[in-house]
């Protein structure tokens, strides 16, 4: 078991009303799964992903990640935990515009304090694997959307995470680019990376081994 959510609630208070973002979420995800989260706008997909990624708090319930009770961890420990095991991919890529492709991929390693020689080897590997060696000195704005997302994924994988969280990774891409990215995800999954993706597209959701439908903050039904 990689992670387990039990009775997760998250809400915001608007005046006298309480608006629920997540309602009684119960979810188990094993290592090696490829889960797609679907649902209309505002159904809480991204919030759920952020909670799983420990970027966001929840108000009620328990969350165990690799046996650790996340709700009991201090901020610092939680940061350390997600830094070590989780990689993020975003719809808008969120590359740092001031950095080159190479530097974007390298930055997480810098923050981890990895030595220069090792860093160089790891980044070179990653560039090679994604076949973007020739683009390593370009800045994000000089790349196409698909290429940017490749860099984004490379950056998410450089720390060798157990879990990859992708929030509509193909949302800004055309269908061909999107397909390539999904193929890449599939391949990564086969190599052992657990993936949770949020998507609008039925077709992309099919790449996953399991689909979770959200509606107004709660899980509608579970299906294979």
């Amino acid at each position, binding site marked *: 078991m990689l992670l387990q959510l039990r009775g997760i609630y998250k809400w915001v208070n608007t005046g006298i009303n309480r608006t629920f973002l997540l309602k009684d979420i119960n979810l188990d995800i094993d290592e090696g799964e490829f889960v797609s989260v679907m649902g209309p706008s505002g159904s809480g997909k991204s919030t759920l992903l952020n909670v799983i990624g420990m*970027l966001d708090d929840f108000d009620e319930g328990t969350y165990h990640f690799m046996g650790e009770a996340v709700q009991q961890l201090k901020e610092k420990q939680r940061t350390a935990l997600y830094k070590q095991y989780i990689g*993020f991919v*975003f719809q808008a890529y*969120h590359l*740092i*515009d*001031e950095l080159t492709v190479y530097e974007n991929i390298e930055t*997480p390693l810098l*923050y981890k304090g990895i030595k220069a020689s090792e860093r160089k080897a790891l980044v070179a590997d990653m560039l090679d694997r994604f076949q973007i060696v020739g683009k390593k000195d370009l800045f994000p704005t000089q790349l196409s959307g698909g290429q940017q997302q490749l860099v984004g994924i490379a950056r*998410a994988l450089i720390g060798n995470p157990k879990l990859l969280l992708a929030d509509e990774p193909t949302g800004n891409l055309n269908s061909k680019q999107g397909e390539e990215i999904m193929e890449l995800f599939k391949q990564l999954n086969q190599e052992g990376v657990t993936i949770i993706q949020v998507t609008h597209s039925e077709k992309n959701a099919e790449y996953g081994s399991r689909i979770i439908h959200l509606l107004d903050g709660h899980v509608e039904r579970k299906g294979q």
Partner: protein
Amino acid sequence: MIRNYLKIAWRNIRKHALYSTVNIIGLFAGILFFFLIGAYVWSELQVNRTLKNAPHQYILTSEWKDPNMGYDLATLGPLALRLKHDYPNLVKNYYRYDGITAIVSKGEKLLKQNVQMGDSTLLEMYGFKVLHGDPVTALHQPFNVVITRDMALLYFNRTDVVGETLAIRSFKDTVHDFKITAVLDNLQENTVTGLTPTYPSKVFVSVANAGYFGRTDLDTWQNNQIASYIELQNGVKVTDLAGPIRQLLKQNTSAVVQENLRVNPVLLTRYHLHRNNQAVLRTIYTLTLAGLFILLMAVVNFINVSVSSAGTRMREIGVRKVIGGRRRQLIFQFLSESIILVAIATLLAVAAYPVAGGIFEGAVGKSIPPLSSFPLYFIGIPVLFILFIGIASGLYPAFRLSAVNMIHAMKGTLQSVGENRLLRKGLMGFQFAVALLVSAAAFIITQQVAYFFGKNLGYNKAFMVSAQVPRNWSKPGVDRMIAIRDQFAKLPGVAAVSLSYEIPNGNNGGQVPVYKSGADSATALTLQLLSTDEHYLSTYQVPLSAGRFFDGYHRDSGQVVLNKTAATALGYPSAAAAIGKQVRVPGDPTLFTIKGVTDDFHFGAMSGKIPPLLMFHINFNPIYRFLSFKLKPGNVPASLAALQKTWSALIPEASFEYRFMDEDLNILYAKELQLKKAAYMAGVLALVIVLLGIFGMVSLSIQKRVKEIGVRKILGASVAHIIKLFAKEFVAALLLAALVAIPVAYWLMRGWLQNYAYHIRISGGIFVIIVLCIACITFLLVSVQTAKAAMANPVKSLRNE
């Protein structure tokens, strides 16, 4: 990692070139100003510290109960010498001098110099570096002279001039050759050779020349105008001298002197900073405070612009956090950016230092030491400065920005950071307050200075020119000079000429105690003495209150003229009542008749009340220094040329070095003029920094609110509405700042004006004008910046969603 921080920082700086430039310019101005002030303060603190055995070097100053009885920077002639001779285990050495202005010539070169006629101990006692000659014997003999390197180069174009001669003119119209016995290296500023900093001496002769120059012997106790210095033995406290000084005064001086005089030995290193009511120290404090304020403003600007511009960097910050950047690492990144910016600004400031130094010199009235004159370890100062200011100004933005919630940051919807309105307004208000304060001060100082030069001087300074003439202080000497005066008066460009010892520049020759004939001599009042000819009043156009002025032609024997203050002080009910009355000087049987009473005029600076004056005719007090010319309006250069020509014919032994009365007043009010310049500089700097800050903030604000502008325009807002939207915020901050700054400025400037017996009144209008001016400038700047955004087609700004 550090390299990475620096690299990213540099790219960020370049990417946000506009804000970086705004930040750098603001910091540059602040840092440059601060460096200049630092250099000035350092050089002031260095004064006298280079003297040998500086911790034991003292000057004897005099405190006279009646300030008209003597100068505070001089004392009784023999005192220092006797202290050394009678108390050798207290006093190690002494030096005294009588300062004289004499014409020193070599061949064709005739130049007026400040000459110190002093004790032979000078060179050894202070350890001045001697380039050539023997310091021990150099000043023992009469007709020997010691000069500085400057002087040697001036007269000979070389420095090894020992054995050469310079001719020095006495006051009795004789010229004698003086043999050069030593050449000193140029002297660093000190209060031994430069007791009055504006006229440092570079020529030194022995006291043995007193006779030649016709000066009172330094060894008579009646001579109270001798600058005196002593060096204490090790371990002797200055308080140990109190007894010996009292003893010597008791043995040698009259009861009146003992009653009135207190001699204070003051440590030389302290003296420079503390004299004249702590003038230098106060300047140091004022400037340091101004420098710190300006620097603080620049730092505040930096913080303001950094925090506001952070809005555009939110996403980057969020991403960095999500991919594993710890807060500390982000803080480091921001700090490296601010350190780089400060480093650029600091390096520019160092580079601009020599150029800006020239402008700054005018404001402090002193040359700023060149970079090369600082000790080598000063190189560490800019480095520390970069780190300190870089961290100080980067810390707040760094902490603030690294603390943002990353989910919000990622969405780029960060309201909390850039929008910290209260803080930003507070900082903005602080800057406005400083700018207002400094501008108000500059304005009031300007008004007061204009008042100094204005119509209420009591005499007419327009077209007044004066020149010092060579001295021959004897009856024939005066007669000759009067004849020369009359020659000048015949020139067509000249309206009037007067020969006198004084011109109204605050430097008069002496004081005289006077009492009404028939009264007790103990009731004598000390009056300031002027020695003038009969044309003085008409030349300077001072109105006569009652009686007549001098007649000239030796007909003024036993006659004196008073000013109104003196007549009142002596107890006459009116000016007219004083005419024909007789007064006496204690110890002198002569009865002086009051011939006339003049209106009061400002002889000295307006800091003091107009003192009581008494005038003698130069026929009977045969001393003189100046010819004063009242030129006719019209072709002044031609009149001056005519004066020059006539001068060369009539007075070939001296050069015609003239000054307009305005220039004399410039010297008299040098401090105030400096202050005015300094206030202008600070005012301009403060304003520039404020405007830079506004500029930066407005352009960021526009960037953030492009969409809002678009929506507002579609809803029907005019350009003016939109400009108002942006300007409102700043004008509000300005008005708030005005509430604080105006009372503070009023209080400060009223305090400053209290220093002057004659001063302007601060009117509320000044503040209104200044607030309006700054408001207008602010509004203009905001308008210019906003107009473009306000006029853009809203469809464009709304489309790029």
